């Protein structure tokens, strides 16, 4: 972490392997800031080794902190979840399994900026932003929730949709199959009947092609009709 000063203007510098973050600003004397503090941020930029970087104003820096650090919190649990809406100053979205897209909205006709980071570069950026967040010289009020354990619902995002749906879809298919087989299962025939067509000796003989002797009707037995059997 370096600190440069030119007159009132201060530059805070945070380095990590491939990433350098520079924050320029002035102490806000109206709020009683000390000489080394940065309360009025005039600009910032991230420089990457051998590739274009990203820059912006105070609101972009705050948005950068508010999306990248929660994204890292989810990533450490293996959950790839986008942070920031389409119209937010900065957002970060997973790009495949091992890459991450950092997008900065363009201001007043300026083109939007986009960075594609691999896992190593994301880790560098997170370390740099952690140092920035904990630097007492920088007066930047970012809305950062404390790290908390993820719920089951949040963790489900790390399981692909196909795998998540496999169990309920399999259960539903098994239920439908069981219901279909159950509907094909013949209903128990009455011990003896004379009224229904299925109970007649002729119908029975038509079933298997062999004549069978009719069972003597029991006095208490009532004829049972199958639904849809036509009786």
């Amino acid at each position, binding site marked *: 972490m370096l600190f440069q000063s030119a007159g009132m203007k201060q530059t805070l510098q945070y380095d990590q392997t491939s990433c350098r973050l520079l924050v320029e600003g002035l102490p806000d004397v109206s709020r009683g800031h000390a000489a080394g503090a940065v309360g009025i941020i005039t600009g910032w930029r991230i420089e990457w080794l051998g590739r274009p970087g990203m820059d912006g104003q105070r609101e972009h820096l705050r948005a950068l902190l508010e999306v990248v650090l929660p994204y890292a919190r989810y990533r450490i649990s293996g959950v790839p979840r986008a942070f920031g809406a389409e119209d937010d100053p900065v957002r970060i979205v997973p790009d495949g399994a091992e890459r991450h897209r950092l997008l900065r909205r363009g201001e007043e006709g300026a083109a939007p900026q986009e960075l594609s980071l691999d896992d190593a570069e994301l*880790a560098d950026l997170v370390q740099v932003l952690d140092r920035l967040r904990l630097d007492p010289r920088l007066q930047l009020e970012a809305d950062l929730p404390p790290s908390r354990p993820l719920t089951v619902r949040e963790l489900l995002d790390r399981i692909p949709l196909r795998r998540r749906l496999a169990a309920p879809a399999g259960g539903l298919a098994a239920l439908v199959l069981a219901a279909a087989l159950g509907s094909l299962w013949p209903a128990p025939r009455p011990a003896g009947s004379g009224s229904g067509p299925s109970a007649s000796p002729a119908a029975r003989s038509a079933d298997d092609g062999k004549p069978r002797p009719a069972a003597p009707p029991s006095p208490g037995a009532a004829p049972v009709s199958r639904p849809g059997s036509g009786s």
Partner: protein
Amino acid sequence: MEALPPPAETAGSAASPPLGRRGLERLDLMLLCMEALDSNGGEAMVWMSGQLGYQERFPNRVELWKRRCHNPLRRACRRGQLDGGDSEALIHITCQLADRLYPLLRSLLCSSDPPDLIEMRWNLFRLRLGELLRQRMNPRRSGVQALLAADTGQGLVRQLIQSLTLAAGPGGVDRLRASLRDAVA
């Protein structure tokens, strides 16, 4: 080397709730990954625990090993829950070691290096991790089998390495602590 943060004992860590089964598994596997990266990793852990002020808690390798044996995936697994203070100490040691080994961890995830070099690093790392897993973990456990399998192992080990890179640095302890207490999906 930068000055280490004050020992976790002062942060009221002894009152922190114990880690669950999954959290213990992940924490011990992360330490195992760092042992695979650093051949002197076991000694480095004891040294780091001393640096962080945990001499009384972990005076030697055996005490550290006894705490790590609460991992249900271990061959010699200990019953019961790990004390909240012990788990907090292990989290701090893991994060500090991840910070120390950050260049090595980062080199495994870096996509800008030549692909054959990245593959060579991964092959060497997976070879050493596989040896440690077979040596210390129960091969009948499905979690160990998944880590050793050719198809699923690579993704799981990569996730462990990514978690270690994000656990390094000043905000790493909070992230890792919260992550180890995630619900079981």
